[in-house]
């Protein structure tokens, strides 16, 4: 178990403890090897989910910087609100409101995430004061021209994927010094743009550190790196920096989050389609 190298080295000074630890590790390994890579992958995903249970709701301001291959960039500013729906069979509710560029100020996007069924989504267009129910079949489509697809941004629910644990290894640059589980996940929902995703989850806090996205032809399409994590309410980790690189086009999108707030007590009625016109 390479991930425990640091711990291991520390313990080397204490031979007794080391012996005890080795026995415990051996015991742990036995049970670990008793489960299949699929079971282990699912168990890790469930632990990620369990540790994030109870955040209630969150709000954040975020800046989205889109850069093309030539290095030209443009910026969007938006607010994201999430309402936790605790039932495992249901997904969270998300609300996105645009502040910048000015011509789309007040445009709002509301999504009720489902597990395997299509999400319910609405769009509000301020110029016409019109709320439109929209098709959620465009899961793999780019979100406002960025390298994030809708399915990358919307809430990640355990049962949306099948899992397989691949290996344990160092998390790499994004989380220097940390050990990671590497698990593969396969979308179970319809209309995904991906054959699979490979995710690096840090073993201490169960935070996603990196995700490799493979397109439907199973070629590497994108890599998302999550960094600058902060902990809120003594439990919940949120990344302030999410950087997506598209390997096939050379385009990148960087999300910089500002002012994460959890359990602020957002109201369920903020997530009513009839309130979308009142977010400005």
């Amino acid at each position, binding site marked *: 178990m390479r991930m425990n190298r640091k711990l291991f080295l520390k313990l080397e000074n204490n031979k007794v403890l080391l012996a005890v630890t080795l026995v415990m590790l051996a015991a742990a390994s036995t049970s670990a090897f008793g489960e299949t890579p699929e079971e282990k992958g699912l168990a890790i995903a469930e632990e990620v989910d369990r540790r994030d249970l109870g955040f209630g*709701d969150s*709000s954040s*301001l975020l800046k989205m910087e*889109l850069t*093309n291959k030539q290095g030209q960039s*443009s*910026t969007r500013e938006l*607010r994201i*609100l999430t309402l936790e729906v605790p039932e495992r069979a249901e997904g969270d509710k998300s609300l996105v409101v645009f502040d*910048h*560029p*000015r*011509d*789309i*100020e007040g445009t709002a996007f509301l999504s009720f995430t489902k597990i395997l069924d*299509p999400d*319910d989504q609405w769009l509000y267009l301020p110029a*016409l*004061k*019109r*709320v*439109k*129910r*929209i*098709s*959620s*079949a*465009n899961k*793999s*489509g*780019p979100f*406002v*021209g960025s390298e994030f697809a809708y399915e990358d941004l919307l809430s990640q629910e355990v049962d949306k994927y099948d899992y397989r644990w691949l290996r344990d290894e160092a998390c790499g640059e994004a989380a220097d010094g940390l050990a990671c589980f590497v698990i593969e996940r396969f979308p179970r929902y319809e*209309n995904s*743009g991906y054959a699979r995703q490979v995710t690096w989850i840090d073993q201490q806090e169960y935070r996603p550190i990196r995700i490799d996205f493979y397109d439907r032809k199973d070629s590497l399409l994108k890599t998302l790196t999550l960094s600058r994590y902060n902990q809120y309410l003594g439990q919940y980790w949120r990344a302030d920096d999410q950087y997506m690189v598209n390997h096939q086009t050379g385009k990148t999108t960087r999300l910089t989050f500002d*002012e994460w*707030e959890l359990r*602020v*007590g*957002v*109201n*369920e*009625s*903020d997530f*009513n*389609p*009839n*309130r979308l016109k*009142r*977010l*400005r």
Partner: protein
Amino acid sequence: MTGLSAPAQDFDFSGFVAGETRIFPDKAQFPGQNNSHISPSLVIQPELRYRWNGRDDRITFVPFLRLDADDENRTHVDIRELNWYRQADDWDVVLGVSKVFWGVAESRHLIDIVNQTDLVESPDQEDKLGQPMANLNLLRDWGTLSFFVLPGFRERTFPDDDARLRGALPIDDDPSYESSAEEWHVDFALRYSQTIGDWDFGLAHFYGTSREPQLIPTVDSDGNAFLRQRYDLIHQTSLDAQYTTGPWLLKLEALTRDGHDGDRFFAAVGGFEYTFFGAFESNTDLGLLAEYLHDGRDSGTPATPFEDDIFLGTRLALNDVEDTELLAGVILDLDQEERIFSVEFERRLSDNLNLEIEGQVFDNIDSNDLLSGFEDDSFVEIRLSWFF
């Protein structure tokens, strides 16, 4: 909204300035009508918002000004919004001038009735005048119930006698009303809306002054023919529904209206929008739209060209950084074979600058038809908007 790290109070100033020009390739049809091929215009619409009480209370002010080189009626000022909004968990209220949109269809906004059409802005009837109202919305598990009291009627705007897109006869600007209270009749509306699974629907009733006037041919003492506007009191009950499944949107708007000189009538527009997401192996979404328009109104009712028509259209969204979008379509009259082609194109040029191009072509228009006055008024409009 409570959850957005909202300051106790804040003030926000935004809006846009737009320079635009209409291009009319054809000469004007009627003597005395302005013949210029190029018709420039300037629009300013600032938006002021003051919010307090953690955004639960808000005052919004959106004045609108257009200066038009050729159409005196198109040069106009309006208050699009001036209202106080107060929200609580399961209700909110709007007092003042505001704008409300009802409906789902693309080709015709049949049931949208709260705000008067600002017709000088565009013949597509999508621009609206501000409407004074007291509006209470109850947001409950069983749906949203909206009550409207609408004091103060707004007359529809029409292009000036010598302007393009005025129609076959000049329209008099001294309307008559069925109500003795004239434009001060207080109108009422009620709407119930709800989402159940893949269905979104609304049921509404409106009682008050019709937003559409009857246009009654009249001859003045000098023997000149013109149209006199008459606004009747009507009852209108409407349904709007959308069923969303996979890449399909199925849409229906239907109404029944009574109160004009003619009989109670039924009208509907219904159809679908189907989207190919990621079409052409790219990020482009390609939508195909088809709608059928029926209107059973008889004489003694404000006339409509959409009695038995089909709309076919396509929507292209490139999903690029510039949000490039194109909507093109045609409304085909199934009885008289008239065609109205329309195109709307939009693209962001920079953080603050937006380009829109709109075009309408009136084709194969019968000389006896309602649209005959528009035959030579096909146009392209180019608009550059600067947002601040």
